[in-house]
Structure formats: C-alpha cells, structure tokens
C-alpha cells in the first residue's frame, strides 16, 4: 500500500481556518492527509505540543496563521513565528527532519492558496517518507531525543526566552540597549543546546543511573560537557550521586519538584 502521510495542522480561527473553509466552499480539491486542529491564534501553538505530536508519530505538522500585519490579535502571528523557530531548532537537534514542519500564512480569502499548500506539504512529506516514530516499531533512540526536546520546550528558560524575543529584538532590552537578531540568535543557539543536552542526560538517568563516562558514551556527548551539565543539574536538584563506583560517582535522577 502506498504511504499515506498523517499530517496534523494547527489553523488559526480567523484567517487560515476561514481560508480552509473557503477552499471547501469553492470545491477546490486537495489530498485527504491533513487533520485540522482549530486554535484561536497561531501564537497559541506551543513548541511542546508540536513536539509531543511528532513524538507520537505524526509524519508532518503544519501551522498556519494570518498574514503578518493582518493578525486578528494584532501580533499573535509574530509570536507564532518565534515559537515555530524554537520548535525547528529543537527538531533539528533530535535529527528528525525539519522538513516535517511548516509554518505558513493563509488569509480568509486564500482558499486556493490553502489547497495548494496542503498539496505541496503532503507531497513534501511523501518524499520524506514515514516518520521514524510512526507505526508499531518506532525508533526508540530518536524517541528519547524528541522527548528531551519536548521537555526542553516545556522548561522555564526556553519559554521565557521565546516570550521575550519579539519585544527585545524590536524594542531593545530592559536597559534600553538595542539587541540585534544575530545577538539574540546566538543566545538561543546556546540555550537550546544546553537545555536539550541537560534533558537528554536527565532522561538517560531516568532510564538507568550512570557515570559521566557512561553517559558520555551513551549520548555521544563530550565527557567535559556531560560533567558541566551534571554539575548544573545537581545544583537544580534534578540529579544526585547514587553511589561511588570505583572512583566514579554514579548519578541518579531526583524527584523534580513541580
């Protein structure tokens, strides 16, 4: 049987969902692979929710909002773009193809554009093939990575950064200093790397306690980096020493206070 992609779409109520309705009213035909979730605003779509759906084996996730400048909520789509960018960065970390994600703007008048978009994205996903996380035998190594990415997206640091991004890059920081997109991107790159790595370590330790050396081998991460993250995670109270095996401490996860 030919591969039929499972694609989940988040459509904003005011523009793109109306555009999708217009495609229907105009009887414009497109492939049946998209399953739509209506949200009030594309800015509502959290990276963690997208990652969760990818973890469950969606072959593609599409987010559509109003065109820039036309947002029903003035600037919700600008935040959607920032959030999407974080999702893309995290997906890239896991090794899952970023081509499985798409963010587009569709107005209420663009029924044809919506249909074209579904056509195009479905074709793109067909070419990428089934998600390694779909079906009855998902790639478990990749699954752990996507879970780490999801946990990172749920964490304080990345959420706070994305929440601050639009204002800081547009209006400057709280000290009135200008912050360029390039400077901000550098901070994001570092933060995504750190948060993702820490959650990788945390999830690995949830599976089984281990030493720095063991973690370094298991995760393909430099031992110096693992050690630095372990130190940070201990300070956060997320991990602790379980025992000293030979000369190496073995770490274990702690109950993380919610």
């Amino acid at each position, binding site marked *: 049987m030919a591969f039929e992609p499972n694609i989940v779409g988040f459509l904003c*109520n005011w523009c793109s969902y109306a555009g999708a309705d217009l495609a229907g009213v105009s009887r414009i*035909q497109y492939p*049946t692979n998209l399953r739509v979730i209506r949200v*009030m*605003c594309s800015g*509502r779509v959290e990276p963690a929710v997208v990652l969760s759906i990818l973890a469950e084996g969606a072959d593609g996730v599409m987010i559509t909002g109003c065109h820039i400048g036309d*947002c029903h*909520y003035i600037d919700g789509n600008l*935040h959607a773009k920032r959030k999407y960018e974080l999702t893309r960065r995290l997906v890239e970390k896991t090794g899952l193809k970023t081509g499985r994600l798409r963010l587009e703007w569709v107005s209420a008048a663009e029924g044809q554009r919506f249909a074209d978009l579904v056509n195009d994205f479905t074709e793109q996903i067909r070419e990428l093939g089934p998600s390694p996380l779909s079906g009855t035998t998902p790639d478990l190594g990749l699954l752990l990575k996507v879970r780490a990415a999801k946990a990172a997206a749920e964490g304080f640091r990345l959420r706070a950064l994305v*929440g601050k991004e639009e204002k800081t890059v547009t209006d400057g920081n709280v000290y009135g200093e200008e912050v360029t997109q390039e400077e901000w991107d550098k901070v994001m790159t570092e933060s995504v790397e750190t948060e993702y790595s820490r959650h990788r370590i945390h999830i690995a330790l949830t599976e089984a306690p281990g030493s720095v050396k063991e973690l370094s081998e298991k995760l393909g991460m430099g031992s110096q980096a693992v050690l630095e993250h372990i130190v940070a995670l201990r300070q956060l109270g997320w991990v602790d020493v379980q025992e000293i095996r030979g000369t190496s401490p073995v770490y274990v996860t702690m109950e993380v206070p919610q």
Partner: protein
Amino acid sequence: MSEEPRIGVFVCHCGINIGGYVDVPKIVEYSMTLPDVVYAEPNLYTCSSDGLQKIKEAIEKHNLNRVVVASCTPRTHEPLFQGACEEAGLNKYLFEMANIRDQCSWVHMHEPEKATQKAKDLVRMAVAKARLLTPGDEPEIDIHPTGLVIGGGVSGMTAALSLMNQGFKVHLVEKADKLGGALNELGTLFPTNVKAGELLRPLIKGVEESPDIVVHLNSALKEVKGFLGNFEAEIESKEGSERFEVGTVIVATGADYLDPVGLFGYGEVHGVVTQLELEQKMKEGSLGDVKSVVMVQCAGSRIEERPYCSRICCTEAMKNASLLKEEDPDRDIYILYRDLQTYGIEYTEMEWDAKRKGVKLVKYDKARPPVVTRGERGPMVKVWASLLNEELTIEPDLVVLSAPLVPNPDNKTLSQQLKVPLNSDGFFMEAHVKLRPLDFATDGIFVCGTAHSPKEVAESISQAKGAASRAGIPMAKGRVRAAAITAVVDEDRCCGCGICIELCPYNAITKDEMGIARVTSVVCKGCGVCGASCPERAITMRHFTNEQLEAQGLAALGRVVD
C-alpha cells in the same frame, strides 16, 4: 466536574453535501465505538429546527453532558448548536464540532472512501476534545452609557450627533482649535456641489448646542484603559489633563493630504498646485486669469511606495474641471489619468458631464508618467498619451496635482493606545471587511471616515452613522456577556515574571499587589499567546487547553487515550 462524560454525536448529511461523498451511517456506527460516546444519530440537516429539536431531546433522554456535531464549520454554525444545547440546559462550552463538510466532503469529492476515513478521524478528534471540555461562565459587563468620539471632523460630529440622538452622552475630542476637520479647507463637495461650509454649519451648531455632547478642543488622547463598557480615557490639552469614563470609543481622526513635494514639479515649478490648493483659490476667488489647466491624477498614489487608490481624486478632478469650465467655457482643461475610478451612478454622470463640457481626458502609463518642467511662460507638461500612442506637449497656466489622502500621522500612536490595528498603508483596519466593517476586533471600539481609508463625504457620513449605531447596541442594552474563552492564571505557579503582561495585545493582564498576574476576563479575547509563552506554565487557555490540543493531535494519529 467529576461527572463522567456522556457524549452524544450528531452526524449531518447536509442533504447530499456530506451524505453524497461521506458514508454517514458508517460515521454514526463508528462514533458509538468511541470512548464516552453514549449516543449517536444521523440527521438530514442537523441545523434545521427538526435537527436542533433532536439534539435537545437526546440531551434529556440520554442524559448527555457533552454534544458533538459533525457537519459544517464552527465559524458559521457553532452559535446555533450551542444555542440548542443551552436551551436543553447544557452549558454551551460543552459543545464541540467536527468540520466534515467544508474541510472534508467538499474538498475530497472524488475520494469517498478516503473522505469517510478522514471524517471518522475528525469525529474522533472532536470526541477526544469533548471529553476534556469544561463548562464556561460568561462574565456580564455593565456598559457605561457614554461614548468617546476621537476627531471633530464631519465623521466625528456625525457620529457624536447620532449617539446623542440615541440618548447617550458624548465626549468629542478634537486636536485643532475648531470643529470641522478637513472640510474647513474644502470649497464645494461633489456630487451636489454644496459648499463645504454649508454642510458643516448645522453639524457644528448641533454639536455645540447639545447639552449631551462635551467638546474638547485643542485636546489629544493621552491614555485609554479598560474595556468595553468601562473605558477610562485621559485627554490632554494646554489647560491640563482630564479623565472620564466611557462605554464605547469611535475613532474618527480623519486623514491628511499628501504634500507632493518633488512630484511633477511641485515646489519647483511655478504654477504647480494641488487640488486642495485649487479649491482654496476657487473658494477665495483668487484663481486669476487661468486659461488652461492640466490635472495629473494618481500624483503619489498607486505606486510602490503608496499602492492604494485614494478613491476621491477622480471625482474631485471631474468636479473641479466642470466648475472651471462653467466659469469660463473657453478654458482648456486636460485630465491626465491612469484609470478612471468615477464609480457609481452619480460619479459616472459627473464624468460624462465634464466630457460634455469639453474637458479632455488623456490616459498615461504608470511606466511613462507625465513630466512637468519650467516652460517659457509657465509650466510645461510632456505626456505620453498611451491611447494616441504619441507624446503631447501642453503649456498650461496651471498644473493641478490630484495628491492622495494619506494616513493621519497620529494613527500609529492612537493604534497603540487603543490596541487596534493599522493596515499596511497605515489606515485603521476593521475586524472584518464584510462581516464587521465598522468594528475593531477589540470590543467596544469602532471606526469611521477617512481614518479607515480614503473616502468621500457621503461615505464618511454613512460610516459614521453606522459606527454610532454599532456603538449604541451595547450601550442601549446596558449589559453584555463576554465569551468565556479566556486565560486563567494558576496563582500558585505564577512567578510574577510579567512576560504575559508584555505579550497581551489587549492589556487584559495586570499584576496584583502580590506581584501575581491577574487576567481581566472580560478584556481577554482568548488568543492564548500568554499561555503558550508562560515560563511556569501557569496559564491555562480555556476551551483550548494543552491537554485538549494534545488529545486532538493524538486522536488525529489514531490514538485513543483512555
């Protein structure tokens, strides 16, 4: 809330619109296999009075506490079905729709099997969400029966008088030292050629004499806080500032004329003026001995920098050309145009009238616009007449530029104060061009006149009366209900970082004395951007919770989670 969900699913044939492509009986059968679904039935038309009655009966008979309708789009039919639920005593937020027509049967007409499979998935997703729905309480808002009108031109005064005639008090704020706005500058108005002053006089008199309209001249808005029914405005003038409470706001701040410096010799060649300056000369009788006139249309509009059509200029040129011809039939008058937009019955008649009087129309190309230079005795115009396919050289006494209306420079500040949007041209943008043409998306704020887009006086007056009628609705009711799709802060989790406050486009979130974020639910419009960004995940977006979105996502992938 511990009550187990009991879901009823109603699958609509919509005649053959759905039933012709999707196997409705199969969907009904499938629905019954889904968790918590206790009842399912097909309807020929669920939205018919018969269909709505069936929903009500089933709620009672099967003790349903959630209802799912699989039919068309919630954008048009959700309120109707929610109404039926409410009539049967079920909170309207316990209702969910699956769009199996507009986004399924109509777009997969040649693939009935796949369409049926997709419809099953969409019902499964709707049921997955319905299981997690919670009832919503719609807050009631008291409406202060006073309107604030910003702008004292023809639109603002018309709106103010209309509000007054409906029985409301009005604060009218005007930045200049007198009422009248742009009409103070104009001579005569098309299509009737009434003098602008004659139109203004009764309006100004009505406004000034009304005990219910308070006029604030030389004043500007400093701040607006609050929400529909309960805005608190602060205005500033030389005398100081003043605060008052209003229930609704009408934006009628008008537009400006483009100062076409550098275009078609304006400011460089003697004898090049704008239509506005021509009107003023005609009004004062200071035109002098002008034997020939060239008017240049689209002087600064419909170009990359300013892509919109200014709408009034073609008719304005026809009117002024006709008047000049009436004064002296021997005058030579040329109108150089790109496309003539003398729309409607009256304006087409004006165009014909001008042509009958001998006004000459010359079409030019955007790519080869007229060039105005200094000639021997006045301006010299060279224009490539695209219909004649040749270059004409005219040496008129006067070149008149039809410069477009441009957005009021105050728009940006005002849009930020009121949290209402501007379009890419810089004019105020309504909530929906057809469905809500006088409203902003923010409840209780309305727009009219040239603040919205270039338009002529009759249209401004119509729009002003419309905006005043819209503003009058909540004020006449006295109380309105706001949607319960709002953000809720878990105060135990909130760390007081304030990110949500910065993100909220409606100023709906404030910090309380403990530094905890508080949502004013009547102001919240439910976009959910705050919730999606809250670092502590302390904000729940009602009716669109993360759990609901994830459940829909999993259901889309065929997973049913118990």
